[in-house]
């Protein structure tokens, strides 16, 4: 391995790692607030890529149908809860948030289908289309069992992933897509080619890390989320609604998934089931951060990306084995150094 090859591998690894950073941050964000390991996170990212590709091909993306179905189910559940409580004055609000709001981007996509939007509105529309999916899933699937054990939430989450993979096949079809490149820029740095896409990915990861930091430390919503993450009961006593905090966490997680989906779509062919393995590797990064610390998660995810790149060079058939086997030392180190969080004894 020459220095040049090592440099190319490192750059490739950092670009892949940056994608993992975005997704891993989403994992940590959602887990810390809701205690849900959101396994379908990768699927959401893949759906964004597929949505964007459909918009480019001037077709109506499958996301429209998916959001419509989810919105109707969520609204029905919400209305049922409201009716049972007899709080009829909440009905318009529920219909607005669970039915109308999610359907606005869907309606826009439906109205503009057949015309090719310019790049920026197209990407924004793709993101807007996918954003309601996670919060709606949270309402339909997780809200009713919000207080269950982490294990139960995880099992439901895994089941949800399989359901989503099936829905992905139904709504998007089995074909892989690759979207148009975001930039054709490329440069040579000391004989090593660096593509504009890689720079964009790393920049996006950096920007979103910064935004998350600002969000958590300088906004009221961010602080409320942090409070819920630390202690649900305590946060509730301070007037923070955990359900709302959960919805916000899922929404911000969705933004991260959507951004990573948009960034990855021009670099690689995405299938309806591509997201899972990407999400799984990001999850390794999240575990390095103990599903708790944002900075360590970011560093860990970058490490996973670089490790993957070098592992592929050393022995490509065993690449995945090498990536996933770093979990063993990480878990050992975690379990010896961390004070056990006795979650079950809290209440």
């Amino acid at each position, binding site marked *: 391995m020459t220095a040049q090859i090592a440099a190319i591998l490192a750059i*490739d690894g950092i670009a892949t790692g940056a994608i993992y950073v975005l997704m891993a941050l989403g994992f940590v964000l959602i887990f810390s607030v809701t205690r849900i390991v959101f396994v379908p996170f990768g699927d959401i990212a893949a759906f964004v890529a597929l949505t964007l590709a459909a918009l480019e091909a001037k077709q109506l993306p499958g996301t429209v149908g998916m959001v419509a179905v989810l919105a109707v189910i969520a609204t029905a559940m919400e209305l049922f809860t409201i009716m049972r409580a007899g709080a009829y004055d909440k009905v318009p609000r529920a219909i607005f948030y669970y039915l109308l709001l999610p359907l606005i981007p869907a309606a826009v996509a439906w109205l503009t289908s057949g015309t090719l939007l310019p790049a920026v509105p197209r990407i924004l529309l793709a993101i807007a289309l996918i954003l309601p999916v996670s919060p709606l899933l949270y309402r339909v699937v997780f809200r009713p069992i919000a207080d269950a054990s982490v294990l139960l939430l995880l099992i439901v989450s895994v089941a949800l992933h399989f359901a989503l993979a099936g829905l992905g096949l139904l709504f998007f079809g089995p074909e*892989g897509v690759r979207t148009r490149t975001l930039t054709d820029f490329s440069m040579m740095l000391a004989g090593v*080619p660096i593509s504009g896409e890689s720079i964009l990915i790393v920049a996006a990861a950096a920007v979103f890390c910064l935004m998350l930091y600002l969000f958590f430390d300088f906004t009221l919503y961010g602080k409320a989320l942090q409070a819920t993450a630390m202690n649900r009961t305590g946060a509730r006593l301070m007037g923070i609604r955990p359900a709302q905090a959960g919805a916000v966490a899922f929404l911000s997680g969705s933004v991260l998934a959507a951004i990573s989906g948009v960034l990855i779509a021009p670099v690689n062919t995405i299938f309806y089931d*591509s997201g899972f393995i990407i999400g799984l590797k990001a999850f390794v990064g999240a575990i390095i951060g103990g599903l708790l610390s944002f900075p360590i998660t970011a560093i860990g995810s970058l490490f996973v990306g670089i490790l993957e*790149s070098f592992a*592929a060079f050393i022995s490509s*058939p065993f690449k995945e084995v090498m990536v996933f086997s770093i979990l063993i030392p990480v878990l050992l180190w975690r379990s010896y150094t961390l004070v056990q969080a006795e979650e079950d004894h809290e209440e």
Partner: protein
Amino acid sequence: MRRFTLSLAALAGLTLAATSANAQITVGFVTSLSGKASSIGLNYEKGINAAYAYQSEVAGQKIKLIKLDDVSDVSQATQLARKLVEQEKVDIMIGTSSAPGATAMLSAANELKVPLIAISPVRLGIPKKGHPWGICVTQTPSLMVSVIANRMKRDGIKTAGFIGFNDSWGDLVYNGAKKAEASGGPKVTSNERYSRTDTTVTAQALKVLATHPDGVYDGGSATQGALPLIELRKLGYKGGFFGTPSLLNRDFVRIGGKAVEGVQVSAGPVIVTSQLPANHFSKKIGTAFHKVFKKVNGTEADDGFSGYAFDAWVIFLKAANTALKTAKPGTQAFREALMQAIYSNKEVAGVHAVYNFTPKSYYGVDDRSLVVVKLVKGHWIYQP
């Protein structure tokens, strides 16, 4: 006693009815019209529709075609095979669109002693007693690789890198390339693998580049088969790309764009019928197939799969012609005669291959069944 006579008469009546219903040849056809194999399965369906329109009777004997959907499910394929034999009393079966499904149908055929023409690759041992009850019309993976390897040898390519899927398909292509190397083909310089869901193959491509091969084998398939080729071109690789029929895919061309221009793959001759020389075995029947396909389905037959279904029908027609001389349709003797006729008919020309089957193997094609085609400006061009 009276009751016994009555039931005997009823039985006789039933048998008579059954015989009269079976005065025609019955063919059972299974494919996947829904589920994950349906994108391929639909092509088989179109192929068999064209085949039925091409010829629907043999020696004055009408043929009844029963078509069933196995919903891309292996156990369903087995059940349908049983249903076709036990309820519909078919004389011969053709199916189905996935390799596991076809293998499942084949083991059912061996057990029920009804001929099966498999239209997907099968992997099953030859029965120890008697002869097998099935054949398979497709080319074998090792043949697909050896044809392209011979071409590389002819064109003076001495070394070839390998990059392919990290699954059994990648293994098949790699083993084929190694086998070709042993018999004088290009020396294989690397064995790099990636999976369909990988986000990058830069590292693997670098490793292939480091061995400076004259050409590169692509052991991937369909859309994701383009990924390493795009990456290699990006890294400045100038050599040629070589592959198997699994790259003959619209999405491969769409995704690969400029990077896959000039890739050469082995392919069934039916893909390039119009470009074949007039004396090619597939020219005449292939032209007839394309014509009837367009008439029946309204679209061009630009896939290889519909051709397999058509060839299965051609083999069946030839065999039925012979078998009708010795047995009556609807009987076990006719099924046996069909199977023997499939073995005794030599040099049966289809759109894909010249078929010569023996009871020793399910496969019966040779290297005439594959030609080399090259991607030029998004179209596959025959390379004599």
